[in-house]
């Protein structure tokens, strides 16, 4: 496998070199060269902003498809809890779960159940005064990666627990292996994903050595089939599903609500999250107990691989989480047992990713900074993006890094032409 894997890729044929994604990327990881967008691999955090904004649908996410199921004897589907927001409020979700099973799966595990499990763990964490404040939720993999590249001093604030997706995979596979006496290799576990960053987390996990998932299939690619199947679905055996609080994790603020923490801030939209993380880094929120930051508008319901409008989906999740239900089988002892088996906590260190560094030799880096300042003064400062870099300053940086040249600036070139005439 290559050093970097990203779920986000560009369909070169569809890309016409417009600069929509260029300016939207929150970490300036996109350049346009020769009329095609290029994603700088060691910078990309898979947030999916470029997918959302691309008018030509050229930015896309690599996901798996149902053909993968043939590789295994038994297959498990883990629908994202955001799936609850993809159907009208009076939909019988039992039929939806059956419809997913009828796609060719043997077992469907509700991700909301894993959210219930993590809720119990986080309830203890927010009471643990030894942990640095605020505790930052690790639910959103794009935000964890964002902290790695832009806020490394906050790495120790991240709650060292796995995502509901990963815990679902572990619990579901264990249940299936025990019930049917199956070996690990014979079971395939697939996530029905709203999110490209989750796909990346399966191939290149953070915090753990290896993911227990075998693949991820995008919700939008299965949605039509699920709707069709649901109409004729016959539920033979009721599904064990998560509590309404677990389902609530699909919208921003849902985690904080489930944990019952009073002193929290919940933020959605990656730019907004960046702004609040800046404040946290300045030490202005050291009295805050819990920070929930989610890259997508509305939370996971706003994932770019979902179908429904994020605000409509969010409203449905809110309505669903109103009638409080509890997962009876998820007790404190059960969760403690899972924790001790290593099903929940992170085992690996999270490393800083120095994407900004200009040169390992500080002397040379200083010289480069001076050159960037010098070049930036020659540029018009309009941040038009025509050169293929997102801003004039980033063009100056690219030139110094050796990835661009001053003539890439269209405005400068025009001025020079006028002079010649």
């Amino acid at each position: 496998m290559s050093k970097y894997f990203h779920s986000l890729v560009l369909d070169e044929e569809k890309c016409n070199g417009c600069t929509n994604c260029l300016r939207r990327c929150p970490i300036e990881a996109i350049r346009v060269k020769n009329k095609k967008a290029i994603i700088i691999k060691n910078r990309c955090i898979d947030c999916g902003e470029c997918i959302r904004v691309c008018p030509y649908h050229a930015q896309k996410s690599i996901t798996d498809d149902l053909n993968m199921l043939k590789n295994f004897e038994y297959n498990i589907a883990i629908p994202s809890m955001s799936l609850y927001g993809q159907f009208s409020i009076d939909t019988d979700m039992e039929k939806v779960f059956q419809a997913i099973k009828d796609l060719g799966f043997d077992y469907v595990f509700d991700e909301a159940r894993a959210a219930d499990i993590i809720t119990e763990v986080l309830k203890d964490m927010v009471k643990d005064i030894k942990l640095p404040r605020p505790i930052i939720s690790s639910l959103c993999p794009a935000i964890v990666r964002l902290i790695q590249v832009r806020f490394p001093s906050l790495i120790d604030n991240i709650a060292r627990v796995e995502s509901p997706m990963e815990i679902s995979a572990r619990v579901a596979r264990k249940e299936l292996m025990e019930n049917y006496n199956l070996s690990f290799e014979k079971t395939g576990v697939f996530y029905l994903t709203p999110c490209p960053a989750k796909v990346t987390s399966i191939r290149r996990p953070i915090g753990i050595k290896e993911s227990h998932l075998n693949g991820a299939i995008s919700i939008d690619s299965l949605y039509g089939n699920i709707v069709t199947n649901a109409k004729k679905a016959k539920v033979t055996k009721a599904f064990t599903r998560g509590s309404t609080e677990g389902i609530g994790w699909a919208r921003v603020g849902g985690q904080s609500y489930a944990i019952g923490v009073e002193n929290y801030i919940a933020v959605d939209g990656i730019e907004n999250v960046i702004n609040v993380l800046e404040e946290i880094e300045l030490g202005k929120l050291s009295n805050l107990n819990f920070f929930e930051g989610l890259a997508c508008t509305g939370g996971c319901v706003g994932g770019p691989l979902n179908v429904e409008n994020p605000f409509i989906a969010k409203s449905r999740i809110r309505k669903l989480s109103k009638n409080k239900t509890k997962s009876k089988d998820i007790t404190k002892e059960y969760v403690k047992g899972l924790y001790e088996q290593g099903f929940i906590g992170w085992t690996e260190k999270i490393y800083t990713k120095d994407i900004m560094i200009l040169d390992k030799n500080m002397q040379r880096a200083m010289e480069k900074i001076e050159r960037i300042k010098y070049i930036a003064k020659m540029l018009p400062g309009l941040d038009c993006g025509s050169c293929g870099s997102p801003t004039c300053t980033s063009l100056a940086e690219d030139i110094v890094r050796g990835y661009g040249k001053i003539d890439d600036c269209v405005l400068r070139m025009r001025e020079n032409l006028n002079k010649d005439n």
Partner: protein
Amino acid sequence: MDDKSGVINLEYEVIRYDFSKAGQASSEIKKVLKQLGINSNIVRKVAIATYEAEMNIAIHSLGGRIIVTITESNINISALDYGPGIENIKLAMEEGFSTAPNNIRELGFGAGMGLPNMKRCSDVFEICSKKNKGTKVDMKISLN
């Protein structure tokens, strides 16, 4: 350091009550330090010290400047302002002591943590002030 190429100088003007611009020095310095590959915990200390200095100037003085000098061994931050000066420096250094007026506190600033935070973040901290003249704070953060 004699070698001029081994030094980066950054200078920012801070305008009285301009809260939309205060914080700019801090975030720009943060970016430069990241480009130099400085350890993230040191970057954070510099960012906090600079931010608090900017805020102090914006809130308490008539305006001033932040001057940052980066060498291979340390970072020096000087915050200079013109204004009323600090009457009792010892008192001003106490956590929670604040002379910020109510309208500033209502904005969420002026909690009396500025100077103590600046001192906590720096390895060397010096402050001098003259009544009705202004204040000068010098902070040194070591890179080693």
